[in-house]
């Protein structure tokens, strides 16, 4: 199962190679390839329906690509079951926040620790000291993460009492608690106001540095993309349109045509 390719892109935390995805007659992804350099932040942009989320789903194992291969930290993962990806250091957030609304924010975040907390049903039902200690540690880390994202006040509130925008932050904490090395963020800024986007940019930079993360971010907020990413990959109709820096992308005529729209490009640069 583990095939390490030493030849190409040895330092890519994520390599996507010729990935295609089809549903019935619909081609969602069409031979997409790119690398996400270790420790960097890669932006993934493109018009609606371009296949960004689907690509995330392929990487995280929720979808099975029709063709192609995906290497996470050098390990081929296309045939790996989705739930094993967390152990390989992958974590993601969802475009539509998916929380347990009736549970507290802290409980939601604690789920992130699942992949590294030790013990099976027996040790948990016996509450062995080791499990208790680790659970306490996880709880402390979770609170720390909430604090860092400015959500500590909400820790013991049921998630449905938080407004939509704040759910994104809870999801981020949950993903971070899983101690990822590769983090996929799907539209983290959607629904955030300008000031909140700034804060988010700060947080992502900070955690990337601290946890030595590689981040891939899908976002339509060009401000965030410009500020945060080292490189961007632009998808259109399931195929890669171009790859380069955010600035290059924004000035690329194909990207403007397919994605930004002429006035919008003008707006952004203004």
């Amino acid at each position, binding site marked *: 199962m583990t095939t390490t390719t030493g030849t190409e892109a040895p330092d890519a935390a994520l390599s996507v190679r010729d990935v295609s995805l089809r549903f019935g007659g619909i081609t969602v992804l069409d031979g997409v390839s790119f690398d996400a350099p270790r420790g960097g932040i890669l932006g993934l942009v493109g018009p609606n329906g371009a296949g960004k*989320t689907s690509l995330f*789903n392929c990487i995280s194992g*929720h979808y099975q690509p029709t063709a192609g291969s995906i290497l996470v930290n050098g390990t081929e993962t296309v045939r790996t079951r989705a739930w094993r990806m967390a152990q390989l250091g992958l974590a993601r957030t*969802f475009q539509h926040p*998916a929380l347990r609304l009736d549970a507290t924010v802290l409980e939601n975040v604690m789920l992130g620790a699942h992949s590294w907390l030790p013990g099976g049903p027996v040790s948990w039902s016996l509450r062995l000291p080791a499990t208790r200690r680790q659970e306490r540690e996880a709880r402390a880390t979770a609170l720390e993460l909430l604090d860092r994202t400015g959500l500590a006040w909400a820790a013991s509130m049921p998630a449905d009492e938080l407004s939509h925008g704040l759910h994104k932050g809870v999801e981020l904490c949950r993903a971070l608690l899983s101690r990822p090395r590769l983090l996929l963020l799907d539209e983290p800024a959607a629904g955030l106001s300008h000031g909140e986007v700034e804060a988010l940019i700060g947080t992502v930079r900070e955690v990337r540095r601290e946890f030595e993360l590689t981040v891939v971010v899908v976002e339509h907020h060009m401000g965030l993309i410009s500020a945060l990413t080292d490189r961007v990959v632009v998808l259109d109709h399931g195929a890669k349109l171009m790859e380069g820096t955010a600035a290059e992308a924004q000035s690329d005529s194909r990207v403007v045509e397919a994605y930004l729209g002429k006035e919008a490009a003008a707006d952004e640069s203004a």
Partner: protein
Amino acid sequence: MSYFIQVVVDGLSNGAIYAAIALAIVLVYRATALINFAQGGMAVAATFVAYALTQAGVPVLLALIAAVVFGFVLGALLERGVMRHFEGGDPDTAVVATIALLVILSGASAFFFGYEPHPFPSLFPNKTIGVLGVFVSLRSIGTIAVLLVVMVGLQLLFQGTKLGLAMRAVADNPRSSALSGLPVSRLLMIGWGLAAALGAIAGVLVAPQLFISPGMLDFVLVYALASAILGGLDSPIGAVVAAAFIGVIENLAGAYLDFIGDDLKIAVPFIAVIVILVVRPQGLFGRKVTVRV
């Protein structure tokens, strides 16, 4: 050979009984996205109305019509008075509420008519026709004919009418539907009303065979549920095909597999259903539910 055909034909007429109730289950499911255990109770209550009328000398057909009307009103009232309270809550609670309704409805039927089964007059002549040594009762043929009409009607209702579309929308997401101005409560009421009315038809069709009693449908409901699920739950055609399949395969197993015998033949359709579902979770005719992350 004629024995084989006879076994199949017997199976089909059993299947018709399951199909009658399965169609009602499909209807409620499509209209309310709920498994409704009260289905059987409502059908029995409505059939008892028909029974009481026939006892009073009313012709069966008229009694049937009265039962259908009564069923509709009963279903609508139960939705209005009881189930509405559980809308938007935990679906498990709503399902248990339907269990409570089932218990109450059969308790109430028993209160008026006792638990003993009573003979029930048939809509169709009580005759049997024989072709080449194979015998079918006119009642079974009539039942199947009515069912096919109902099946087509349901299919048209859901696929071809505004009401059907609205009911599906409400079952899918009542809140979102309300934002488009769909009268959610009224549609749910209609859904329950139609389901109970259909239950009345089913009840009147099967009562001559099963005899009417408060528990008349208790076990049929299990088969009907299996048929509805095997058919794909949202497909009237699927429910009927699955019911026929279950009826026939059960009879064949009883007749031809000695180690199965009459006692364990019930296991055969259930195991077949399980195998099919494991291979095809959405059922024979069901559409796959689309879930996306």
